[in-house]
């Protein structure tokens, strides 16, 4: 197809598809008037049953923890994929361009001041996942961004020391593996996969959710390590000499 004809066909087919989609979505319940039973059951029962106050976390890490397991492994596959795509080519030449990032003093100072704050903030978001908005995923990503901040202000060496590949990779896989292990732990005592096995603590305390807290932590470790690795692969690729072709 030529560019022009593709544009016309794309426009036509998107319009037709749009008609079909709109024909379906206008029959949804009115915006703001959602009736569904599933959410009512959870909103009513989760606080008492699971001793957590952030219901989406309870859904993600307990009621529907199996979905989150799949999601963790999606990150796991993405990390492995980047390693396959970038690293196995990189093995041949160890030559690296020096870092090209020119950082002004102002950024450096601001960054140094922010690091402590972001680390704390990320940890807080992870740890309070069962109580307030956020959780392993959001907090883990913030922690990964902190490592990136260190790259910005201290350069490659510090970044490489922090993101030593084999270690972070093991950490990432361990996070994903821990999720499965926590799930399997209950099987040994005759329970179901991913069933809560810890005593649930007092409401509004950090560990009140029992297993939710552990799974949340595992997710936090997995996500932060995964994103550090993703960034590291891209950054390393960007410093590779351009002679490959």
């Amino acid at each position: 197809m030529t560019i022009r004809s593709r544009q016309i066909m794309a426009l036509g087919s998107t319009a037709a598809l749009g008609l079909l989609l709109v024909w379906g979505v206008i029959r949804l319940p009115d915006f703001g008037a959602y009736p569904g039973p599933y959410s009512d059951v959870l909103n009513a029962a989760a606080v008492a049953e699971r001793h957590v106050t952030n219901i989406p976390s309870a859904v993600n890490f307990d009621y529907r923890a199996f979905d989150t397991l799949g999601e963790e492994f999606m990150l796991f596959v993405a990390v492995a994929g980047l390693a396959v795509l970038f690293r196995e080519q990189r093995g041949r030449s160890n030559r690296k361009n020096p870092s090209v990032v020119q950082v002004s003093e102002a950024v450096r100072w601001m960054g140094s001041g922010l690091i402590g704050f972001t680390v704390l903030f990320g940890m807080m978001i992870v740890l309070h996942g069962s109580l307030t908005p956020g959780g392993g995923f959001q907090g883990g990503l913030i922690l990964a961004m902190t490592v990136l901040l260190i790259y910005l202000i201290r350069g490659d060496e510090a970044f490489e020391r922090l993101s030593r590949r084999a270690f972070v990779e093991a950490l990432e896989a361990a996070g994903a593996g821990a999720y499965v292990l926590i799930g399997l732990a209950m099987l040994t005592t005759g329970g179901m996969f991913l069933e809560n096995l810890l005593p649930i603590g007092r409401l509004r305390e950090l560990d009140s959710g029992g297993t939710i807290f552990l799974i949340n932590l595992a997710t936090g470790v997995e996500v932060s390590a995964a994103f550090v690795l993703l960034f590291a692969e891209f950054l390393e690729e960007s410093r590779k000499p351009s002679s490959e072709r």
Partner: protein
Amino acid sequence: MEPLVPLLIALPLLGAALLMVLQTAFPRSWADGFAITTAGGVAVLGGFFLLETADTPLVYWLGGWTPRDGIAVGIALFVDPFSAGIATLIGLLGTASLIFAWRYFDSVGRMFHALMLVFIAAMVGFCLSGDIFTLFVFFELMSVAAYVLTGYKTEESALDGCLNFAVTNSIGAFFILYGICLLYGRTGALNLAQIGRALGGGPADGLIMIALLLIATGLFAKSALVPFHFWLADAHAVAPTPVCVLFSGVMVELGLYGIARIYWTVFDGPMTGEQAAVRTVLMIAGTVTALTGGMMCLLQRHVKRLLAFSTISHAGVLLIGLALLSPQGSAGASIYLVGHGLVKGALFLCAGILLHRYRDVDEISLRGKGRELPMTGVIVLLAGLALAGLPPFGTLLGKSLIEEAARGHHYGWVSAVLFLSSALTGGAVLRAGGRIFLGWGRTAEEEASGPTEQEKPETKEARRRMHWTMVAPPAMLVAFAALIGLAPNLGEQAMAAVARFHDRSSYAGLTLDGRAPAPAPILLSSRSGSNIGTGLLSAATAVALALFELFRNRLPNRVDKGIRRMLRPAVFVLNGWHSGHVGDYVVWLMIGTTLLGALWLVTVQLI
């Protein structure tokens, strides 16, 4: 035995994580052994549940969250002979391809085994899931693992195939998610049984029809039905051969399994009044796919591409079987799925042997070279005949059941479509086999067109010696395919299992109330064994077609040229579609969806 259900998914996932944690500490042979054992474990567990659930399916509530007053709180895994059977197939093919990969790759990256295990776990998760969003998550996980495995060789065409595959299948996944949103908005439920119960038997309105259209399109994109099939040939041609075994053998078919599962749990009720229309639309889609795939298959000379197009054709046949909406048709499709998966896996492994030994899978340039590999040649011959439906292979039993069901619905022409699909794909495989292993047919100089594409070898240099671990897996798979056809009463047993599969109130009762009314027994109006006559005929036709293709040049020149001229427009159009441009594929995806929608509207009006 219930507690073992989650192990089917958790074991390979845990294995993948372990392999990554210990990647430097593990020598490669351990990693191979570990991965093979895990995949084998999945196969054994799956087989165990296949026998265990023959009478009553098993529902496993993850996290122990059983439903309350008919409202599912958690996620259910549903194990019945179908999901367990496909899990077994996944385990078997996974084991075979991992054993094959053991001596196949010279140096395989550390990630390969971990990725394969995640891929296996994701496919098993997809087929066990009784929750529509979990289906989506595992669909995505399986797809992401498949993309990475496609691009594993990281050469140009591999990346290209990976990109086309990833973009089209992701859009397919978005369609599915839109369908899920529509259903969730209407019913407030994610559990298949609960959605089905909430929709009841009421007439289908626009929302339900669009939801069905979107979910079906997304899964059609995975199962490579025309015109959503473009990614498949690109991806299969470039993915490492052991991976192709899983792609063609089971991943593509899982899309159809997903449609069947969702249709009979959710849409069966509301669509009761529209059954004739559903049947017509799906039959048309299946027929077009079966014939287009068969034609394209015959036109290929790159062996992996040839096999990929044959998979498309067989996916069309499977859809025809399901589209009949009759127990016999579905039973036939399920047997056909397993039979075809085993045979196709064996064929891809044989292609891998060729690639390993000669660093090439071009049919023409390999002409006669295969004389040194008599074992492989015999396997290809058997597998080619099995594709064509020779007794006693499982493919024939499945096909016979589908034909029987079609005759019951006065679709006699289905037999012709199935016959053509078998003859074309079987003929193409036999032609390639005859040329490679016997040296028949034209030489490279006589062949007008150049090679389609060069493939980067998966091994460092051509091999003189071949390890037994590379011949044993395909031989084993072909033997299994024959065993299925020979199993006594398999047809009846499949029909009994289908009776439950089609019975949505039994499914819902078992899932939501923990007890199920016995499904209505199916009256066996007709025979349910292999139709040996048809099988012999289609196998003979395939052989004849292969011989014709090989010795076409011995025909009078005029005849040969006349045939070529006749076929040229079709070849031109079919090849023109496969532009390899990701934008085109996306346009086709949207046009295909709209066409399906339009076809649906027209049929509903007419019938």
